[in-house]
């Protein structure tokens, strides 16, 4: 074959020129590239560029209205020994873990309930979505009133019932405040988990349940060996999103507590905003935001590698 190539006549090269163009013109991969370009430009402009800029900013001492100079890792060194930063990391992890776990448990339970045949099924399913539809800031303001130190409806009711004799300090006590914001986040996040899992449940073929019933499987066995395995892929996707949303939550906490009392509810996102935008130190704010990336990557990695496994894809043990 090498002889054929070596003896290729020179004129054939010139003759090929138009055909290169011809080939390019009809090349499907190239056409596909062109079609992808708008999307890629979008991603680069609105995702990659801001992300890169944010990371770059975290290595500078930029302030609002004034370009910064490169200061290397100084922002990170400072954060490393900053107790408020570590408190915010702890708060964020606590917030994410507890809220996500409870959201999953309640969401799955609700999905199983809603999957049954019952009257007004469509309407009830729609109602469940309400917390998800209400704008976050609106629900945060509603919760702010519910948790108010003086006017809380919960405190008021309990006092009228004679169960307690003074208002509960919902947002003023560190533990109460953490619990309160987590509860508000759960209230808001459950519908997303429930409805998505419900969609997953609908794809499970009823014949499987029929067969299992004929074999005398109990409710639990049907859940454990049919529902749960078939639902695993969608659980992985839903929980990835749920964890990401919770980890990066901002509005709810900012509207409810602004990170108080004494920074007990400061999440990394709220601290980043306070330092970067409110206090004007963009570099430090960007460093806090950048510090969130490893955590987010870890969350994505877990579900990504999990979904590569057949056990997760098909829910069986044959991996």
């Amino acid at each position, binding site marked *: 074959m090498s002889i054929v190539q070596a003896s290729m006549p020179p004129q054939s090269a010139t003759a090929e020129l138009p055909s290169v163009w011809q080939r390019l013109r009809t090349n499907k991969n190239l056409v596909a590239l062109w079609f992808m370009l708008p999307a890629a430009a979008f991603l680069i402009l609105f995702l990659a560029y801001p992300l890169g800029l944010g990371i770059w900013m975290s290595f500078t001492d930029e*302030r*609002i*209205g*004034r370009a910064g100079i490169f200061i290397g890792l100084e922002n990170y060194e*400072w954060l490393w020994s*900053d*107790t*408020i930063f570590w408190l915010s990391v702890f708060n964020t992890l606590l917030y994410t873990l507890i809220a996500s776990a409870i959201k999953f448990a309640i969401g799955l339970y609700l999905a199983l309930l809603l999957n049954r045949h019952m009257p007004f099924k469509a309407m009830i399913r729609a109602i469940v979505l309400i917390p998800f539809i209400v704008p976050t800031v609106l629900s945060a303001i509603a919760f702010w009133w519910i948790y*108010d*130190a*003086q*006017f809380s409806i919960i405190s008021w009711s309990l006092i009228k019932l004679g169960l307690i004799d*003074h*208002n509960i*300090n*919902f*947002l*003023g*006590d*560190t533990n109460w*405040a953490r619990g309160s914001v987590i509860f508000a986040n759960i209230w808001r996040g459950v519908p997303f988990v429930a409805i998505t899992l419900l969609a997953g449940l609908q794809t499970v073929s009823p014949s499987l349940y029929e067969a299992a019933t004929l074999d005398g499987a109990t409710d639990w066995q049907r859940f454990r060996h049919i529902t749960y395995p078939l639902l695993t892929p969608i659980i992985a996707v839903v929980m990835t999103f749920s964890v990401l949303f919770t980890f990066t939550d901002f509005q709810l906490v900012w509207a409810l*507590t*602004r*990170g*108080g*009392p*004494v*920074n007990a509810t400061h999440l990394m996102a709220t601290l980043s905003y*306070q*330092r970067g*935008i*409110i*206090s*004007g*130190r*963009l570099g430090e704010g960007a460093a806090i935001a950048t510090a969130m990336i490893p955590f987010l990557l870890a969350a994505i990695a877990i579900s990504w590698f999990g979904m590569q496994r057949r056990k997760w894809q098909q829910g069986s043990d044959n991996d």
Partner: protein
Amino acid sequence: MTNFTLDRRSLLKGGALTLATAATMSAEELLGYAKAWAQTAPWKPEAGAKVNLLRWKRFVEAEDVAFMKIVDAFQKAFNVTVNVSNESYDDIQPKASVAANTGQGLDMVWGLYSLPFLFPNKCTDMTDVADYLGKKCGGWADSGKAYGMLGNKWIGIPVAATGGLVNYRMSAAEKAGHKEFPKDLAGFADLIKGMKKNNTPAGMALGHASGDANGWLHWALWAHGGNLIDKDNKVVINSPETAKALEYVKGLYDNFIPGTASWNDSSNNKAFLAGQLYLTVNGISIYVASKKDAPQMSADINHAHLPAGVDGKTRELHLGFPILVYNFTKFPQTCKAFTAFLLEPAQFNPWVEAAQGYLSPFLNDYQKNPIWTADPKNTPYRDVAKTANTPAGLGKMGENAAAAIADFVVVDMFANYCTGREDVKTAMASAERSAKRIFRG
């Protein structure tokens, strides 16, 4: 009233008369005045200028109405457009900062505290406007200069301040054994203690409330001789004086109504008007609201300056309202003319009256406005400029001091100790660390 169009001569002749008529000017009269002013003004607005102005959302409705009347007259007289948008206290600064950073969206901002100092190199030099107004209106109070000037340059015009003064129910204070409002720190602490015992509690914000919490906690720090920075902007927060201030505030906090660690700027207003809170530190807005909605309560409300510090001097941190013009605006002359017009006696006097004490002036002549003495309960708010300090305290106002107050360095120190999260030493050390970081280099 169309024949009421002042020309330049009659305006100058009017002099003192304008001040008297100003309060009762109708819209047409105001327009006539504005037209006459336009002829003499040292700033000539750009033709067809469109100015975007952002201001804080009103707390007193009549103030906003009066403000919009001035805007309207200015627009018609100069044939320009001024778009006014409102944002709540908390959202002003982020929006202004984004505009400063991107160089577009807004031409001028009427904001809070030390806003111009957060990005001084994005502010137009307003020295000519300040000099013009100072000459015309009896000069600037020292605190006004501190709030407006960076070095020898005015980077913002401090339009007014809302005083952070004690609002209290006279009956409750009297019952706690203080017929006269206490003038020293010990008396004040005793009053708070007594009020708690009578179940008519006091309460001041210890949460991230940019106006209320910063205000009274800086007073407490300064009253005991503590300071975040000294006159050379060196961090000196870790001191025995600060420790005393911490102990003092803890003593007050223990006698407060529960929940103040979660309070934001509106919490004390709500609780006071609901009759659950009997003493707090706030602007005059509670009194103004009660006059309309709860006349019985308003008869029982009075105001006082916070007690003097250990050295006998009263230093308070009031909520200043500076107006700034970005240096990237296409219409600097319009913005300057508008700022000057706003603070002219003919506009400012009726506006201050409409605000019913919510706007305390930094220009000396406006302390003579009858609003301050017509109701003796307003009088303490007249002297806000005299006790006002900038967030820098002894130091020089600049972007670092502005950053420190925005990051709640002092508030967090007090809250950390009062809620028992940190002891005195740790609370001071954390604040020192944060402050040193901000004031480095």
